[in-house]
């Protein structure tokens, strides 16, 4: 049965959980379809993740390969389509714990970067899994800075081949997923040399292992890069190339080609490719970043109403830890952020869909804005969600530290998202560059993209709020965010100008302003997130109490942001110190309000127990029994204690000399 402490929380919901779930899914029909897919996957023992916390790197890898292979069978059996909506739910349900995910990146790069003939040759082989592909870009010495890659591809006109080399240790490909043990082929990025001239980084298709016995091809050294913080199921690999030859036709040549005589020809626009890169950043957010935060909130909040510790009042029963203000202050802002980011994700997808249509129509005007958006939001969403998951982990006390809580693996996985698809600081500085450009343009009276028009309209002023309830009016807090973002951007621009005018070289001036610029970019994205939350709430259906609770969450998200960045807001002068007291009071008042709906709000995320895989977060709240059952299943209790005979016994019997 359900733990009564959890059941009572559900009775008190102020809104319909089912309707909120449908709203998050984008309609009741999608909820139905998602649940059908999840059920089919979770009921198949091949896909069970029950024992993953007990498995070694080798076992995790093998299970992930097994799942990847069986999934192909399952998809056929169920009549799902590889391109349909179901696929999205399948991968979401598997939480990425599956091998061969780079194979899809391999295929996408061929279809985006390959000529028609190349697509016709390679795609059928890949879709039917006669080959398994990986994607090798990052090297030991280079990640962020692609122009700095050191792998070379030298054209040999005599044989009509490229000769690929990783000339030094730092040039070795390092990190590509599925490379270490699985892949037979890879797209490899290398500096192209023709007749001694370097043409920059280009992609090549390279066979790395034999299709007969899977052994590395001559000149290829390939292997696994060793244990990581997580992703133990993935064989991230290294690849060392010594005079490996590929035919001329293996350079992916949608945009450029080396002709038989060595003439280098470039054609078409690479801008569409640029668009692909930016859209990948956005596509990881939902499943890899926002949903893990939702899971962490679900686990921590359910556990916090089951866990009782100490007494709030003498003589009473021990209190649920969620009734402590300090616990609410840790968890509820994370819950609000999970919703805020869910909505910003929807917003970004709409923006990209519109952008994609423009680009199809050969209109590339929106690209800079899209690029700035994808960079900035990838950075702030991954950063916030990562710290949110860690806060949830630590809010669960000692039991959060057990792998059985599910939280450590959520954390060690999401943390990688701050680095992959662009290191966050680097990305924020790209957004800052865009903002500075827009600010300059706006100052000169030129038109700017709609998302940044506030840069020219913001005027300094004083907030008219008089009491704490005024800060539940989005107009007031939105204005505060707008002022702050606008001020940080304009003062960074001024500083930059000042340095340049006083004779500092431009690159050095930029470096000297980067701490400030990074802050400005964050403030901009934070503002847009709050603004979008407000607009989303306005559009929500007013029935079944959903709009009301979402409004509370939106207020909490906004006020928590002000409370946590007081210095920046006070500095603006728009808010006074007296206002800050009101904001703090208003923010703290919201905590007990949202506290009442905390469990229904995480229930609405609709995670199954299997997908949470957490002793602390299960729907029935039988926390302690599940922890105990989990511990007893641990190999440490199932497989005897080899250390006793080898070490402990001699120790206890004073026969240490035998060690």
């Amino acid at each position, binding site marked *: 049965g359900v733990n009564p402490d959890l059941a009572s929380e559900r009775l008190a919901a102020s809104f319909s959980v089912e309707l909120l779930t449908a709203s998050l899914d984008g309609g009741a029909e999608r909820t139905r379809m998602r649940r059908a897919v999840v059920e089919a996957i979770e009921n198949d023992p091949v896909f069970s993740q029950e024992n993953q916390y007990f498995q070694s790197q080798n076992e995790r890898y093998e299970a992930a390969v097994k799942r990847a292979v069986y999934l192909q069978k399952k998809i056929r059996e169920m009549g799902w389509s590889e391109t349909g909506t179901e696929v999205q739910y399948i991968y979401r349900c598997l939480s990425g714990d599956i091998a061969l995910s780079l194979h899809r990146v391999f295929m996408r790069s061929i279809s985006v970067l390959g000529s028609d003939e190349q697509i016709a040759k390679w795609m059928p082989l890949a879709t039917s899994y006669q080959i398994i592909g990986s994607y090798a870009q990052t090297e030991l010495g280079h990640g962020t800075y692609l122009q700095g890659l050191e792998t070379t591809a030298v054209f040999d006109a005599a044989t009509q081949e490229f000769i690929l080399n990783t000339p030094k240790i730092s040039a070795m490909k390092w990190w590509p997923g599925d490379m270490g043990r699985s892949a037979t082929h890879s797209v490899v990025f290398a500096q192209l040399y023709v007749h001694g001239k370097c043409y920059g980084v280009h992609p090549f298709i390279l066979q790395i292992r034999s299709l007969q016995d899977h052994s590395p091809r001559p000149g290829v050294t390939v*292997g696994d890069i060793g244990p990581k913080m997580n992703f133990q199921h993935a064989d991230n690999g290294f690849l060392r190339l010594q005079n490996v030859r590929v035919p001329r036709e293996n350079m992916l040549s949608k945009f450029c080609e080396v002709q038989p005589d060595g003439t280098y020809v470039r054609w078409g626009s690479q801008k569409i490719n640029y668009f692909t890169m930016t859209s990948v950043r956005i596509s990881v957010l939902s499943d890899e970043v926002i949903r893990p935060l939702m899971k962490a909130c679900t686990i921590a909040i359910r556990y916090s109403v089951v866990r009782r510790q100490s007494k709030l009042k003498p003589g009473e029963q021990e209190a649920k830890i969620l009734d402590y203000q300090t616990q609410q202050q840790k968890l509820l802002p994370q819950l609000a952020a999970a919703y805020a980011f869910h909505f910003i994700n929807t917003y970004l997808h709409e923006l990209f869909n519109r952008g994609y249509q423009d680009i199809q129509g050969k209109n590339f005007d929106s690209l800079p804005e899209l690029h700035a958006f994808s960079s900035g939001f990838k950075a702030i969403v991954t950063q916030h969600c990562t710290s949110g998951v860690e806060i949830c982990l*630590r809010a669960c006390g*000692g039991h959060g530290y057990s792998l059985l809580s599910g939280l450590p693996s959520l954390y060690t996985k999401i943390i990688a998202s701050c680095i992959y698809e662009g290191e966050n600081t680097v990305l924020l500085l790209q957004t800052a560059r865009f903002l500075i450009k827009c600010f300059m343009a706006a100052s000169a009276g030129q038109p700017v993209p709609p998302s940044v028009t506030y840069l020219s309209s913001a005027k300094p002023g004083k907030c008219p709020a008089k009491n704490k309830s005024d800060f539940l009016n989005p107009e007031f807090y939105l204005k505060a965010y707008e002022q702050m973002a606008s001020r940080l951007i304009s003062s960074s621009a001024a500083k930059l100008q000042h340095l340049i005018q006083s004779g500092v070289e431009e690159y050095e001036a930029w470096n000297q302003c980067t701490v400030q610029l990074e802050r400005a970019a964050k403030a901009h994205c934070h503002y847009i997130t709050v603004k979008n939350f407000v607009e989303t709430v306005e559009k929500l259906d007013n029935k079944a109490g959903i709009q009301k609770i979402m409004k509370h969450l939106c207020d909490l998200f906004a006020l928590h942001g002000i409370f946590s960045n007081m210095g920046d807001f*006070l500095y603006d002068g728009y808010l006074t110190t007296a206002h800050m007291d009101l904001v703090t009071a208003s923010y703290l008042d919201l905590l007990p309000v949202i506290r009442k709906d905390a469990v229904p709000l995480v229930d609405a995320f609709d995670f199954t127990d299997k997908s949470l895989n957490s002793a602390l977060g299960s729907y029935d709240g039988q926390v302690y029994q599940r922890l105990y059952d989990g511990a007893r299943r641990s190999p440490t209790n199932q497989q005897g204690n080899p250390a006793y005979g080898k070490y402990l016994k001699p120790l206890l019997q004073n026969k240490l000399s035998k060690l």
Partner: protein
Amino acid sequence: AAAMVMNADLRRERAAATFQPELLTHVLDGGAERTRRRREIEALIANDPDFQHEDFSFLSRSQRYGQAIRKSALMVMKLREYGIADPDEIYLFKSFVHHGRPEPLDLHLGMFLPTLLTQATPEQQDRFFMPAWNLEIIGTYAQTEMGHGSHVRGLETTATYDPATQEFILNSPTVTSIKWWPGGLGKTSNHAIVLAQLYTLGQCKGLHAFIVPIRELGTHKPLPGITVGDIGPKFGYDEIDNGYLKMDNFRIPRENMLMKYAQVEPDGTYVKPLSDKLTYGTMVFIRAHIVGDAARALSRSCTIAIRYSAVRHQSELKAGEPEPQVLDYQTQQYKLFPLLGAAYAFHFVGTYIRDTYRRISADIIEGDLSELPELHALTAGLKAFCSWIANAGIEECRMACGGHGYSRCSGLPDIYVTFTPSCTYEGENTVMMLQTARFLIKSYMQVGSGQRVTGTVSYLNDLPRQHIQPQHVAARPVTVLVNDPVSLVEAYKARAAWLVEAAAKNLQAELNRRKNKDDAWNVTSVDLVRATDAHCHYVVVKLFTAKLSEINNAAVRAVMTDLCLLFALHGISKNAGDFLQAGILTNTQVNQVNQHVKELLAIIRPNAVALVDAFDYSDSYLGSVLGRYDGNVYETMFEWAKKSPLNQTEVHESFHKYLKPMLSKL
């Protein structure tokens, strides 16, 4: 592997330093002689083939546990062989043997033996202490249960006295009462000191400690009535068999209750203990230790991240020029240097608490406990303050190393997972902050009622001024000079005073409104945590600043002054809201602070590598490919990866099982 030469970048960095790291190392160790002795002890272990082992990153949990047990057993033997008996030296020896990781005998050495010493009667010491000392008995300390950690009084395990047989009957009556987490319990120990609610003659007498045999000597099998095992995999602590213990009508003789203080007589009569304040002392000691752990974990992380940032080159600052060291980027300096400052600050704080504790230990033995409450309150807050910053700081360092920081070869994931539980154990951090807050509020009330307070809270004595002037006490102008650490200490002091006062007033307002002091306390707890945070921050800045004048060498003092300034100013910049709201700083001054932070980054940059070299971690202790002293990062990473378990065969077995059928099916 061939001997590698020093990476050229690191060589240049070291040549350009303005001070001798060796002299700073002496400051950290507390004198040149202590540095020498520390190195001597480390050499004993480094040169001992018995202590060599494979890289733990490649071992399974069971193998890691086995290796740790092996080394612990040898460690105990060799400590005696070398005649090392000083507690500090034992600690050094142990941490070198285990590379700063926990080990399965920690609870035996750190809790079981000391508890016997302090709480056992002479008769009990005869029975248990020498066998435990000789490791015929291995014990652990079983307090935490599945359902109770922070709230010790809520523990559910019972020990019911049976006068008929003169035994205690131990029971774990519910699932939540199962003992959970004790280190060394799962597989290693054959005895445990168990905390249980004592029942005698039908009455509950509260928590008491009992010596419980749990495994049969000779076979190591659990005794009848005992269910014991490992609690399963964790985030870190792979070497430790944290365990569970369930007891069903398990009987132990009356003489197994630790009876130096409280006693149960044969007929069941309960004799009360005299005082329980002494347990404060142990807690102070352990929490001081955690501050030291925070300093070590953070300084190791900074060493790794800063050396790697000097070796790693990426992108271009200026078109056409070679790729710069990533340490030349302002954003990278901004991530790492304030943490470097914190690592030094925490080191000095840890030393201060330890020394103060030692100073007043003599008083404690004499029965003078007057200084203990403040030290106790202070260490609770500092434990939380320092461990939170270190916890976040380790992660910041790891992320500053980009993708390679994520690899276990960087050593950073291991440092993180080993350190992060200290935010929870020995007092959950939020609970600790609130304990300190209780002391701060109490002191504030004392001042309000006309008493003077002493020690770190003496700034509250200035408060009565508010009765004359209607403004906040902290609003009196502080002249803040951004170049003077002493002046910054004053600014932090004013902020602490302001936040303590604000919390006290809010608490009072809630009391007036609700009349229930527990509710009022709960709805003020966010303010109270902020007040403690500000108080601790003040103490840390103050101790760091005070340390500067003790440094004799001018060059070392100069660089430490820069670092102290950076630490203090960065803290102001990050908490500018408080300083602005309290009227301690103006907008213009906040601007100066932000500006000066950036200037200091550039000033510290040339000394960054020397500053981490001064921590004097050996490569073996550091355990990091990225943080190697010689900077040969990439070569070593490749060698390391080749040893990965997935690489043990050229073609992995899953190829034959799954991939081959799939590849060839069509």
